[in-house]
C-alpha cells in the first residue's frame, strides 16, 4: 500500500528547514518548528508500526526498521524539548546568533536518518548515509573555532572513507548479483533476501567486509571509531545526544540488512565471525582509552563504542542474542541520550568539559548529580535498567558458545565500568573546585524532564517489556531469518 506518511516525514523537515532559513531572527519559532516536527515524527512512527506501508519502490516500513524509527522519534522529541532550555542558558547565549543552524541541520539530519531507516534499496540507503554525514558535520561544527574545526574535519574525512568502502561493497555485491545462478538480481533488500541463494558466494564474501567496515564506521565500531570521541566531545550536547543515540542505530540497520542477506545465502557463519571480531575489538579500545579520558564527553563516546561492540556481539550470536542486541540498542539509545543531555547541563554549570574541573556536583546541583549517577548506573548495565537484561542475555548466550570469550567479554566490561565509575564518582563528590564558575546557573524544568523521562523508560523496560514492544522485537528477529 502506498503511504503518504513516509513522504510526510521525509519532506516536512526540508520545508521547515527552509522556513527557518527565511525567518532566521525568529528564534522561538525555530524551537517550536523543531518541536512540531518531533511530534509529527512520533505520530508517523506509531502509524508506520501499525500500518507497514511503502512509498514508491524505494521506501518501506517493515518489522525491522519500525523499531529504529520509534527509538529515533523518542530521542528526537526529548532532544527537541531539551533544546528549549539549552539554548536559553547564558553559557549558550554567546552562540545564539547561529542557533538557527542547529535547528536547520538537526531537521535535515533527522530526515536523512529516516531515509536510511526506510530505504528498501541498498544504493538509496548509501545516499542517505552520506547525506547524514554532511548534515551532522554541520552540527559538529556548531561552536566553530579550532577544536570544532578539527573534530569536524576528522568526522567528515573518516566517515567518508568508510562510506566509500560501503559503496565498494555495494558494487561487489552487484557483481555477485549478475554472476549468480538466478539471472540478474535487483539491489532491493527484498530481492536480495529472496534471491540470496542465487548470489555468487565469492562476491558476497568479498562485499561483506567492505559493507561491514563502511556501515561499521558510522556505527562507531573499531577499528574505524576514531572520529567518534572528537565529534561527540565538540558538538553541542543535544546534537551529541541525537547523534550518539540514533546515527549509530541507523548505521546498525545497514549492518543488519546485509547480515540478513548473508544468513539467507547460507553464509551466516562468515558474517557472524566478522561481526564477533569487530565487536570484541570495539570492547578492547574503550577498555584501554576510557581510563585515560580527561574529558567527560569523550568518556561517554568511548562508552558508545563499547555498546556498539556489545550490539555487534549479540547480533553475531543470533537468535536470543539478536533479540538482546536489539533490546540493548533501545536501552543504549535512551540512556546515552539522557547521559549526553545531562552533560550539557554540567557544561552549563561548570563551563568545562574536563573531568578534573568538575567536582562537587552533588553540592552544586543535586538534581544533575543524581541524573548523572542514574545515567551511569544505566549505561553500566546495572539493574533495574533494560541494559542489565540485554547484557545478561548476551552473556548467557555467549557462555553457551565459548567460556573463554565470555571471560574476555566480562573482563573488558569490568575495566570499562571501573573507568567510568572512577570519573563519575570524582565528579559528583568533594567540594566544587571552581566556586565562582557556577552558583546562580539555574536550569529550567525542560533541562531535566527529557532525561528523567528517557531514564524512566529505560527502567520501565528493565522491569517490564510491554507486549507491543515484545512483539516488535520478536517479529524483527523472525524478519532477520533467525
Amino acid at each position: 500500500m502506498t503511504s503518504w506518511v513516509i513522504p510526510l516525514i521525509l519532506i516536512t523537515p526540508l520545508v521547515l528547514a527552509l522556513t527557518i532559513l527565511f525567518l532566521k531572527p525568529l528564534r522561538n519559532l525555530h524551537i517550536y518548528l523543531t518541536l512540531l516536527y518531533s511530534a509529527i515524527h512520533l505520530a508517523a512512527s506509531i502509524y508506520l508500526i501499525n500500518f507497514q506501508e511503502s512509498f514508491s519502490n524505494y521506501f518501506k516500513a517493515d518489522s525491522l526498521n519500525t523499531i529504529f524509527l520509534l527509538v529515533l522519534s523518542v530521542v528526537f522529541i526529548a532532544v527537541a524539548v531539551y533544546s528549549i532550555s539549552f539554548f536559553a542558558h547564558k553559557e549558550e547565549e554567546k552562540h545564539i546568533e547561529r542557533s538557527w543552524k542547529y535547528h536547520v541541520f538537526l531537521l535535515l539530519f533527522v530526515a536523512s536518518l529516516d531515509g536510511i531507516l526506510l530505504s528498501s534499496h541498498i544504493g538509496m540507503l548509501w545516499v542517505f548515509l552520506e547525506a547524514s554525514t554532511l548534515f551532522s558535520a554541520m552540527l559538529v561544527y556548531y561552536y566553530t573555532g579550532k577544536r570544532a574545526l578539527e573534530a569536524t574535519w576528522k568526522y567528515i574525512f573518516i566517515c567518508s572513507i568508510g562510506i566509500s568502502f560501503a559503496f565498494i561493497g555495494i558494487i561487489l555485491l552487484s557483481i555477485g548479483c549478475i554472476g549468480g545462478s538466478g539471472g540478474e538480481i535487483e539491489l532491493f533488500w527484498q530481492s536480495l533476501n529472496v534471491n540470496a541463494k542465487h548470489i555468487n558466494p565469492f562476491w558476497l564474501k568479498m562485499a561483506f567486509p567492505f559493507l561491514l567496515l563502511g556501515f561499521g564506521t558510522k556505527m562507531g565500531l573499531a577499528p574505524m571509531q576514531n572520529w567518534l570521541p572528537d565529534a561527540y566531545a565538540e558538538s553541542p550536547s543535544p546534537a551529541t545526544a541525537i547523534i550518539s543515540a540514533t546515527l549509530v542505530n541507523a548505521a546498525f540497520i545497514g549492518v543488519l540488512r546485509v547480515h540478513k542477506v548473508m544468513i539467507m545465502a547460507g553464509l551466516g557463519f562468515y558474517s557472524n565471525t566478522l561481526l564477533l571480531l569487530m565487536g570484541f575489538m570495539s570492547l578492547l579500545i574503550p577498555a584501554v582509552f576510557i581510563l585515560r579520558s580527561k574529558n567527560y564527553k569523550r568518556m561517554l563516546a568511548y562508552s558508545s563504542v563499547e555498546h556498539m561492540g556489545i550490539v555487534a556481539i549479540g547480533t553475531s550470536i543470533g537468535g536470543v542474542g539478536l533479540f538482546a542486541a536489539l533490546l540493548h540498542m533501545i536501552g543504549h539509545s535512551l540512556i546515552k541520550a539522557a547521559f549526553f543531555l545531562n552533560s550539557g547541563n554540567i557544561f552549563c554549570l561548570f563551563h568545562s568539559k574536563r573531568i578534573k574541573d568538575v567536582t562537587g556536583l552533588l553540592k552544586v546541583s543535586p538534581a544533575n548529580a543524581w541524573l548523572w549517577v542514574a545515567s551511569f548506573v544505566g549505561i553500566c548495565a546495572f539493574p533495574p535498567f533494560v541494559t542489565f537484561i540485554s547484557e545478561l542475555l548476551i552473556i548467557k548466550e555467549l557462555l553457551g558458545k565459548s567460556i573463554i570469550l565470555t571471560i574476555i567479554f566480562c573482563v573488558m566490561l569490568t575495566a570499562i565500568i571501573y573507568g567510568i565509575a572512577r570519573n563519575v564518582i570524582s565528579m559528583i563528590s568533594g567540594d566544587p573546585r571552581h566556586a565562582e564558575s557556577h552558583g546562580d546557573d539555574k536550569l529550567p524544568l525542560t533541562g531535566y524532564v527529557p532525561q528523567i523521562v528517557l531514564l524512566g523508560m529505560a527502567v520501565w523496560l528493565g522491569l517490564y517489556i510491554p507486549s507491543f514492544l515484545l512483539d516488535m522485537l520478536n517479529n524483527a528477529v523472525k524478519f532477520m531469518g533467525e
Partner: protein
Amino acid sequence: MIASINFENSIIILFAVTMFYVAMSSRMEAYIKMLAAQGALLFAVSMHSISPSDYITFSFIIFETLVLKTIVIPLYLMKLIRRNEIQREAKPSIPNLYSLMIVSAITAVGFLFAYWLTGTRQPVNPLFFGGAISVILAALFIIMTRKKLITHIIAFIFLENGIFLLSLSVAQEMPFIVNLGVMLDIFAWVLLAGIFVKMIQTSFTGQNIDSLKGLRD
C-alpha cells in the same frame, strides 16, 4: 573489434598510469591536472561502453564525468589552492621514488588479481576491474602518506574515480535516482571539504594533518 578493444585498453592503462604521476609529484597543480585527466578518461571510457540510445543515463554520465569530474571540481580545487597559496605537498612520509615503486606494485597486484578472477569465470571485465582496484588502493596509499589536507581531498576524489570505474565494470546499473543521489552527495562533499580546508588554513598555522592534534585524551 580489435581497434575498439585497443582503445578501451589504452584508456584504462592511461587511467592507472595517472596514479604513477601523482606518486612521483609533489606539486598541487600536477595533482589537480591528473584529476581532470582522470575525469576526461572516465568520460571517454563511459562513452565507449554506454549505449547512446539510453538518453537519460547517457546525459547523466556526460554531466558527471565531463562537467563535474573534468571541469567543475578541478577548477574549484585549482581556485582553492591558488587562493590559499598551496603550491607543493609537504615533505611526504616516504620519498616520492619509494611512493612510485609502491604504487607500481599496487597496480601490478590490482591487475594480477583481476586477471586471476577472469580465470575463475567471474562476470567482470578484468581491465576495468584491475584499473579500478589499482586506483582505489593507490589513492588510499596517497592519503596515508601525504600530509596536506588538500591532498587528502584530491586523493579522496581519486578514490571516487576508482569506484566510478569499478561501477562501470559491472553490467548491472544502479537506478537513475540512486546514481543522482550518489553524484549529488559526492559533489556536496567536495564543496564542504573545500570550505573546511579554507577554514583550517585560516585557523591553524599550517595546512598539514600534523597541525590537527589538539584533540587527544
